[in-house]
């Protein structure tokens, strides 16, 4: 009986945890709260390529991409600064997972559009998803005058479809730590027109990109795209870019060096004319400025406010 008493006492004693840890009484249930990993990259582009990130739901991102000429053009061209290739773009977050965008590039007067959807999302807590997986489908259209087309030949009839190219890409990546993110991007570029039948219309490619965060507001990004040599048209090389992301509140500035001139998939994956080893390096920058057009949580907040006022 004495043992029973001791057991009972112990039972009570353990049921009364120390007063200085009241919250432990609630157990671990709050860990059920799902916390998605954010800020894998500072913006939705690594440099030229898409990153793991989407713009948030209801947010419009105005992007200015700018590449100067090649560094090795010498003093007369002021090391490339006399020339410029630009892309102006607008991206919008339709839902937390879906982002759409359009852009206009000076490179071959191209208009491009894309749809990007997050199929899986990495989370820090509350689920066991270790990676983020996104799909990007993009299309580009050359809008040059017929005579200006790079493939222009007065003896051959030009079809509108010749101006179109497509790109499909999967982006699988993980934010391994606060400072390190890595992603792989297997993809396919489809060109409606290639120089002759020895060239492939479907160009497979594999991209890899990563970032290392140096401080809270500065990171180093790099990306590389590999295309099997027999799929690349002559005179074109693989794209490699490296640069800094600098975040200043509402803007992200990306300063970088790249051998690619164009800033949409067909151009930088399959039409990079520069070679790093020859000094064909563009200095370039991207500026991203976001505007919140729609606040998806505004209604919920308003409801709570009304409730409070009703009670008060």
């Amino acid at each position: 009986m004495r043992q029973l008493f001791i057991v009972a006492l112990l039972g009570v004693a353990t049921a009364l945890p120390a007063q200085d840890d009241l919250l432990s009484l609630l157990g671990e249930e709050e860990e059920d709260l799902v916390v998605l990993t954010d800020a894998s990259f500072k913006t939705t582009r690594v440099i030229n390529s898409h990153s793991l990130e989407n713009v948030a739901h209801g947010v419009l991102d105005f992007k200015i991409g700018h590449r100067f000429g090649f560094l090795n053009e010498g003093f007369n061209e002021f090391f490339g600064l006399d020339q410029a290739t630009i892309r102006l773009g607008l991206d919008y977050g339709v839902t937390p997972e879906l982002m759409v965008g359009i852009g206009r590039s000076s490179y071959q007067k191209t208009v491009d559009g894309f749809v990007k959807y997050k199929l899986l999302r990495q989370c820090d807590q509350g689920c066991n998803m270790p990676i983020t997986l996104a799909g990007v489908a993009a299309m580009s259209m050359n809008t040059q005058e017929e005579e200006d087309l790079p493939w222009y030949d007065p003896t051959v009839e030009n079809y509108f479809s010749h101006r179109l190219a497509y790109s499909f890409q999967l982006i699988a990546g993980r934010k391994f730590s606060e400072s390190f993110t890595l992603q792989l991007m297997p993809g396919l570029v489809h060109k409606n027109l290639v120089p002759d039948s020895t060239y492939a219309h479907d160009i497979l490619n594999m991209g890899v990109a990563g970032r290392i965060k140096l401080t809270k507001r500065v990171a180093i990004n790099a990306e590389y795209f590999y295309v099997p040599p027999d799929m690349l048209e002559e005179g074109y090389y693989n794209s490699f870019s490296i640069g800094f992301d600098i975040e200043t509140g509402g803007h992200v500035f990306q300063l970088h060096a790249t051998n690619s001139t164009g800033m949409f998939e067909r151009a930088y994956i399959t039409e990079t004319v520069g070679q790093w080893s020859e000094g064909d390096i563009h200095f370039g920058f991207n500026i991203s400025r976001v505007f919140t057009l729609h606040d998806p949580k505004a209604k919920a907040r308003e409801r709570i406010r009304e409730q409070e006022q009703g009670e008060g």
Partner: protein
Amino acid sequence: MNIKHPKHALAATLLLTGTFVAQAQERYFTRTGYIAFFSETPMENIEAHNYKVTSVWDASTGAVEFAALIKAFEFEKALMQEHFNENYMESNTFPKATFKGTFSGVTADQLKKPGTYTVEVKGDLTMHGVTKPVATTGTIVVDQEGKVKAESTFVVSPEDHDIEIPGMVRDKIAKEIQVQVRIDYQLM
């Protein structure tokens, strides 16, 4: 106590269990508490809301604790929320803000009947890895249905918690941030 008879042991067990139950009835908790903060400057007003605050309050001793997950604060602008977590609160390193302290000025018995009570709130606020004392007043309301609600406001300064604000945005973030707490307690 000398326990020789089974009846005594049983009585002792019941007695002890009884005190445990009585004590447990004076504990209140929530998992859906609300904390909001407001930063007001001539340049920009910023507010954030968290509806998933946990708290346990032992009315018999006055001891109270709160915990708020930093990532659960919702902002009007997604980018603000990202920067709040990444650049200011560093929520991957310091995921929670906690408060450990006391409510004094109301007894467990008073909470069993409707009324409004002013309490003194004192304790330590730990945020961004830095603990600072906080003292304020709060209001406890017990309504006709016996529901216990607690409300309080206080001020925190980012500087006190080693939250670094770069020069470029210094005019947009208030030196003193108003914090509002609102809890609907449930008996544990």
